[in-house]
């Protein structure tokens, strides 16, 4: 009796392992950090893209009820894709769009804005990418929706789409 039960247990165990791994194959391997919303936006100082002047972020988040902080670069293809959405959103008076130019050639960045239009009320430079890290970003484009208390209420990883535009509009109502 004992001789028969042991191979059966081993076979059941192997089948169990097989199905656990089989199920594991369907799981996504890429880890995406939590949205990490509900915290106050970090205060930082950065240079402006067009006039080389230094500005503290606290001076930017003062006039409106809602702000959109968009991290972008001229070399980033998805940033081109979302630019149209940002242009449409810039027509909305309830929100102020601030751009953070990430690890870019400044000439290319200016050319990008001049040729595709400027949806930003201010563009700051993040030359070494450390401001983006301190903001909790890990790739570009990334967009933060910030309220009047400087709290991040929503974060979009990847390019903004028509769906994201709807979400933003419902958030700032």
């Amino acid at each position, binding site marked *: 009796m004992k001789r028969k039960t042991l191979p059966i247990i081993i076979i059941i165990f192997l089948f169990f392992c097989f199905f656990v791994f089989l199920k594991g194959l369907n799981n996504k*391997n890429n*880890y995406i950090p939590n949205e*990490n919303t509900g915290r106050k936006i970090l205060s930082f100082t950065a240079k402006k893209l067009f006039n080389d002047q230094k500005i503290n972020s606290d001076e930017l988040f003062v006039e409106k009820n809602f702000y959109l902080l968009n991290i972008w670069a001229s070399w980033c293809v998805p940033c081109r894709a979302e630019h149209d959405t940002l242009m449409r959103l810039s027509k909305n008076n309830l929100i102020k769009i601030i751009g953070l130019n*990430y690890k870019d050639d400044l000439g290319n960045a200016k050319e990008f804005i001049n040729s595709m239009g400027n949806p930003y009320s201010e563009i700051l430079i993040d030359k070494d*990418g*450390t401001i983006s*890290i301190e903001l909790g970003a890990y790739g570009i484009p990334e967009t933060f929706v910030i309220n009047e208390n400087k709290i991040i209420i929503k974060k979009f990883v990847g390019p903004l789409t028509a769906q994201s535009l709807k979400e933003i509009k419902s958030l700032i109502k």
Partner: protein
Amino acid sequence: MNYFKIIFVIIFCFFSFIANGEDLNDKLTNKISKNIRCLVCQGQSVYDSQSDFAVSVKLVINRKIEEGYTEDQIYEYLKNQYGEWIVYEPEFNKRTFFLWLLPILVFFVGGWLIFKKIKFLKL
């Protein structure tokens, strides 16, 4: 001539002290970045990766060390930013206690089985 020697020794000590200080910061940056996962090229540590994300994280770690942050404070800071997954070593909590205790449990059960076997063979 003696004055010259004294000045030389002072300058030598001063620069070696600065060089050593920088070296310690770099060593700590390397140590910490080896324990941090790169979120862009997952499977590589920040130390090994040359992605934009990893290069910037290394700069941030170095800056935090210069600001006087301890190693644990830097891990805590990065965990707050990106979640616990960013560090290779999971912390001991109610979700991970089984992961930590399983090897110890296996060790004791194995030891007990060997002990029993030896006792059985002696008899």
